[in-house]
């Protein structure tokens, strides 16, 4: 159980890092998209 718990903590670290990486890249792309001056819908 001890080992499984440690693995779950590893999963937490890697998982949150992975999610934030994807989200931050999307966030930056959203900012870039927002700069384009085209007609609002």
């Amino acid at each position, binding site marked *: 159980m001890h080992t499984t718990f440690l693995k779950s903590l590893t*999963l937490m670290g890697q998982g949150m890092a*992975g999610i934030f990486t994807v989200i931050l890249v999307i966030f930056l792309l959203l900012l870039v998209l927002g700069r384009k001056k085209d007609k609002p819908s």
Partner: protein
Amino acid sequence: MDFLLDGLLNTTWKQLVMFGVGGLLIYLAIAKKLEPSLLLPMGFGAILVNLPFSGAVNQMMVGIGEVPGILDWLFHLGIEAAEAMPLLLFIGIGAMIDFGPLLANPKLILFGAAAQWGIFATISLATLMGFSLVDAASIGIIGAADGPTSILVSQVLGSTYIGPIAIAAYSYMALVPIIQPFAIKLVTTKKERMIRMPYNPRSVSKRSKILFPIIVTVVAGYIAPASVSLVGMLMFGNLIRECTVLDTLSTAAQTVLVNLITLLLGITIASTMKADSFVTIQTLMIMALGLAAFVFDTIAGVVFAKILNLFVKQKVNPMVGAAGISAFPMSARVIQRMGQQADPQNHLLMHAVGANVAGQIASVIAGGVILGLVPGLL
């Protein structure tokens, strides 16, 4: 004529318990209107599969061999083989989502990521309660607050608890208006809940709305390839909606497709609710862990917003962080209502909606990330 009594004489106490569970789910669906489109089929299915010698599931018959049942067949074809049902459902969900509030205020997407911490906290808690990493990860994904993602992840990882996980995911999504206010009040003061947030959205072009689903799919595909089936289907549905040249398909995806898949998904999941595997102490533990997952999600979102407030001039109402879960639009409505309870002039709805749709993106990414990481840790 003894065969007429065979069913009655072979009924076990566990099957009777499942009749009770089925009856309870039907009651909650009809009387309390808790996710009726899912809980009602699941409740009826729970009764159907637990009738002794039920022909709805595979049975061994003397002299004939195995006779296939419709629900086991549907499960094999629609979920086990390629997770078709939950994935197709995402096309409809994507077609229903308007990412406009998120595109108008991009920083809200960060709340979607933060609120997924509840998934991982629950996984750790589940391992402490004795579950294997595979089962713990499947249970933790209840915290995605997203039924199809929960079903898909638990099925791909091969968890034996797919039935209780699906019930917990859908039940607690319906109970968000009760769970979230409790969790938010645990970690906020009234003064914090009163923080006003002016709404000055930037304009969003049609081109941005069309590019968004394509870009998100490509980014998620490169960084977390395991998430691409989930994210891809969600974004495909959204592209159909936003392109404006496929309005009939968009309408079909939002109505016919979603209704049909939901109808079949509920009763198909019920095939996993056979008494012998369902009436266990683990089921109760999963229900408790599912509740914990929603509480952890909410707290993580609020705490992240508070941390963000340390660095920004324009303060964020910490409750908006709690909307970063996938339960849409219940969570956004809860935040709006709580904001007005603290200050009747406080309008948080559009911020909360933005965080809420961010939660929908982040939850499918979280599902994909877990599918990508867990096999490497076994």
